[in-house]
């Protein structure tokens, strides 16, 4: 306060204090949200292809190739790749589909749930693949698309299996509540069922991937910066660099866990919403 009262707005203030505010004292630049935006390599407009789109195509191709090779000639007694893939598809069908939707109805949705799980996993895992180093789901496009697809599917399914009128009545006017309370409940139910569900699906996946990538970027760029500290005669920063590098490795494994967990949660929530629209809640 004393400084502001003695110095007028037009005076030029010099000194180390202000210099440290306007520009950081050292050259370390932490990763920011700009990490996710790349200039297009070729094409323009909505068909522009940048690094993200190339990664998307690459991972889609890899996924198709993997499943094509694994299930090209399925054996009764699975071996090798087929065995691994069957463990994965079995996990989605039993742990997610059967558990949440129920045995009979989950057969119909098993293809969508399986495709969703492995697609989301493939697009998340690029976060830790050396050379790619960026989660495709860290950009809004793909999570938004997947959330909208899920939204359309569970609404259409609800209208189909309960009838549109019943579906809307069951989701907007839950039974067993005194009549005046509907004034309060119906708007809340509308917002939560038809707006917040896809939005939270979208943001949960997107923000997890953004946060994970920023953490990894922070650790790796910090270790590079700290290791290069010897150039200014600060050799001891390398010790902290070692700690930062260890953190980076630990968080790489953590990212692998998060990638799988988010794919699981996205699929699980899709299954829960589907189960809710197949039969009304009691």
């Amino acid at each position, binding site marked *: *306060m004393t400084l502001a009262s003695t110095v007028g707005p037009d005076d030029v203030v010099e000194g180390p204090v202000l210099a440290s505010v306007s520009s950081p004292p050292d050259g370390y630049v932490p990763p920011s949200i700009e990490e996710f935006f790349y200039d297009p390599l070729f094409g323009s407009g909505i068909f522009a292809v940048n690094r993200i789109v190339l990664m998307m195509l690459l991972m889609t191709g890899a996924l198709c190739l993997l499943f094509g090779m694994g299930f090209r000639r399925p054996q009764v007694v699975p071996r090798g790749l087929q065995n691994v893939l069957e463990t994965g598809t079995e996990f989605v069908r039993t742990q997610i589909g059967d558990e949440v939707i129920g045995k009979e109805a989950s057969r119909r949705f098993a293809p969508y749930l399986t495709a969703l799980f492995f697609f989301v996993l493939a697009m998340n895992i690029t976060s830790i693949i050396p050379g790619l180093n960026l989660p495709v789901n860290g950009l809004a496009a793909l999570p938004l698309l997947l959330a909208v697809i899920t939204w359309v599917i569970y609404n259409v399914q609800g209208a189909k299996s309960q009838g549109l009128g019943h579906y809307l009545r069951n989701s907007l006017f839950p039974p067993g509540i005194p009549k005046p309370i509907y004034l309060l409940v119906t708007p809340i139910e509308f917002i939560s069922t038809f707006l917040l569900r896809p939005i939270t699906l979208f943001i949960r996946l997107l923000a997890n991937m953004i946060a994970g990538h920023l953490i990894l970027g922070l650790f790796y760029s910090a270790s590079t910066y700290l290791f290069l500290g010897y150039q200014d005669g600060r050799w001891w920063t390398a010790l902290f660099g070692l700690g930062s590098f260890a953190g980076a490795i630990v968080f790489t494994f953590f990212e692998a866990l998060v990638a799988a967990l988010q794919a699981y949660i996205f699929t699980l929530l899709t299954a829960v919403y589907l189960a809710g629209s197949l039969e009304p809640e009691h």
Partner: protein
Amino acid sequence: MDASLILAAEDAISGNINSVGYGLAAIGPGIGIGILVGKALEGIARQPEATGVLRTNMFLGIAFVEALALIGLVAGFLFT
């Protein structure tokens, strides 16, 4: 030179208020996930045969609770 910069320089704390906002946004979900997982583990310990159902529902609950913290993170980027 505007006055807020001088004040910030005098207080020797500068930075983005968004990080404080995210810190606040993370408190509730942190407590929530702690309670949630603790209770689920308690249930599993009491009744190991219900592990499958409990684990699925635990992850569901975590997903809902965690969304709040993540919205806090996104809001920090959005409303700069």
